[in-house]
């Protein structure tokens, strides 16, 4: 990295080199982005990648992966194509992840900014609400909500967002406390701007970073939660998801463990990609955290 390039690279290579340089500085960001792009490609290209409907029984059951060219990842106990399930399941997982991540980050940012900026009673009440949501065991809360309301993609997104916004709110609140003492906020007050307007135009834009950085981690959380729910049989019954594939594969765990292993790996890789992306973004946002002092040891 530090070695200077001897020959000036040709013009067409320059953007590529710039990308590589960023990748070298933030390997986790680069790896996460690449993996995520691949998963997005699989999700978007599900229609072209496979010829089968993931819900249809298209082959004979219990075909092991790699033994039949027509079914590269094999078939499950009902003869459904596993590759189709993975590809179509990627759509559902990413949809849920992105929607829940965005929702939780937006709600957390708004509540955190208001609590940090207003302070006093408003802060006290909002922080108690935050504590309330952090006290409830998240998965139990989600299970109750799904059971009471109805298992659907929307319910799952909503309940994941409901149980995850407090982390964002706490981070954002700390930032908002700092920002609310900044000179430009004081100036905005002096010229008589209303407080809601200050929150929207001055505080929020300056405290968004931690919330945005959190989106990908929250999306990973959401995907994990959805997988657990569908595994427990509480997912949306109208779509095929990785979690429900694990759940149905479990019945043949002893003999055909690949039915469980493959969708689980899909969840693992996707969440890993999102976490790497999130960690990379976090490093970019807080550069001084990297390269901590090793001290005398």
């Amino acid at each position, binding site marked *: 990295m530090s070695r200077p390039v001897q020959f000036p690279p040709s013009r067409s290579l320059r953007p590529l080199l710039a990308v590589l340089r960023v990748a070298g500085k933030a390997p986790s960001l680069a790896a996460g982005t690449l993996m995520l792009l691949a998963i997005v490609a699989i999700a978007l290209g599900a229609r072209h990648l496979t010829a089968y409907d993931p819900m249809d029984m298209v082959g004979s059951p219990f075909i092991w992966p790699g033994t039949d060219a027509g079914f590269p990842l094999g078939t499950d106990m009902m003869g459904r194509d596993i590759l189709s399930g993975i590809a179509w399941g990627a759509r559902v997982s990413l949809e849920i992840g992105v929607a829940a991540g965005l929702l939780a980050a937006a709600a957390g940012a708004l509540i955190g900014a208001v609590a940090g900026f*207003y302070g006093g009673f408003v802060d006290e009440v909002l922080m108690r609400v935050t504590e309330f949501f952090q006290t409830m065991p998240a998965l139990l809360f989600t299970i109750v909500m799904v059971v009471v309301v109805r298992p659907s993609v929307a319910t799952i997104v909503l309940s994941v967002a409901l149980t995850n916004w407090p982390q964002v709110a706490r981070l954002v609140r700390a930032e908002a406390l700092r920002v609310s003492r900044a000179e430009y906020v004081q100036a905005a007050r002096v010229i008589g701007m209303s407080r809601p307007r200050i929150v929207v135009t001055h505080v929020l834009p300056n405290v968004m970073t931690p919330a945005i950085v959190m989106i990908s981690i929250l999306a990973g959380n959401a995907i994990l939660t959805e997988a657990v729910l569908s595994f*427990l049989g509480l997912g949306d019954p109208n779509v095929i998801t990785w979690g429900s594939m*694990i759940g149905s594969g479990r019945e043949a765990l002893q003999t055909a463990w690949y039915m469980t292993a493959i969708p689980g790996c899909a969840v693992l890789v996707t969440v890993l990609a999102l976490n*790497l992306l999130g960690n990379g973004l976090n490093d970019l946002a807080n550069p001084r955290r990297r390269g901590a002092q090793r*001290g005398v040891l």
Partner: protein
Amino acid sequence: MSMAPRSPAKRRRPWPYPLRRVCQALPLVVVIAITNFFWLRLAPGDLADVIAGEAGAATPEFMAELRRQFGTDQPLALQFVAYLKRLVHLDLGWSFRYNESVLHLILDRLPATALLLVSALLLALLIGCAAGTLAAVSRWRAVDIAVSVLATLGFATPLFWLGLMLMVLFSAHLHWLPSGGMATLGVDTHGWARVRDIAAHMAMPVFCLAAYYLAIYARLMRASVLEIVGHDFVRTARAKGASRFRTVVSHVVPNALLPIVTMTALQFGTLFSGSVAIETVFSWPGLGQLSLDAVSSRDLNLLLGILFVSSLLVLAVNLITDLVYGWFDPRIEVQR
């Protein structure tokens, strides 16, 4: 403006901290109770419908009689007051699936879950802190990288899936460990044989539940140790002739543990959530499995009872951590 500094008289604390902390927690309990009540009301159908469903058929007169008996024909506010009154008496209602009081059922299953949670937490703390410290102070970069990679994987693995995979390996293929339950069925053992039997059944669920927290603690401990190592007192310890090992064990680690304590309390709710899935996978007879049973038999009373009790448990753990915090780090007391 609200940002004006408060007068010093207002700043002086009127009550000792523990009392203040408990008073802060009380409204939270009430809010949890309100939410529970709200969920019960929101659910389609009421208790009378459930009983009528179990009985097969019921006349409208019988339904009205049931509703009068349970008080569901009363105004909402009155129902809520009655609900609170029952909660104060620790009456969480009746489970029609098990034909037993909800509280009794929960207390019956609580020890199994507690055993699982505490063991997982201890395992995660022990190994996580050791791995994190090792990663931070080791002179081999490979150790640091290995711990980081494992921690990153631990964060991303669906725990219940890890459980299933371990089951395939250790139960189905190697036949080393039993695949589920808490003890071997039909065998009545005592003393050490029983302890060994339960330990064998515990091994996989505890490891699965611990995996995620291992990752958290390893990462947190690494960062915390790296920060502490830069302080002057570490240099002093080294300068006075303490060995590297001694410096780390008696000077660095105790100081680096504080964020771990905070994190443990914060994560207790998540730990509880994790046990729901793990208990289902390994058919561990705890609260998690009970809640899943409640879901499949539509026993909302039982499910909400579990949610209520587990929320209280998490709250209690957080409260206790807050209160013993001063013992871990006497400096905190001054700031309060």
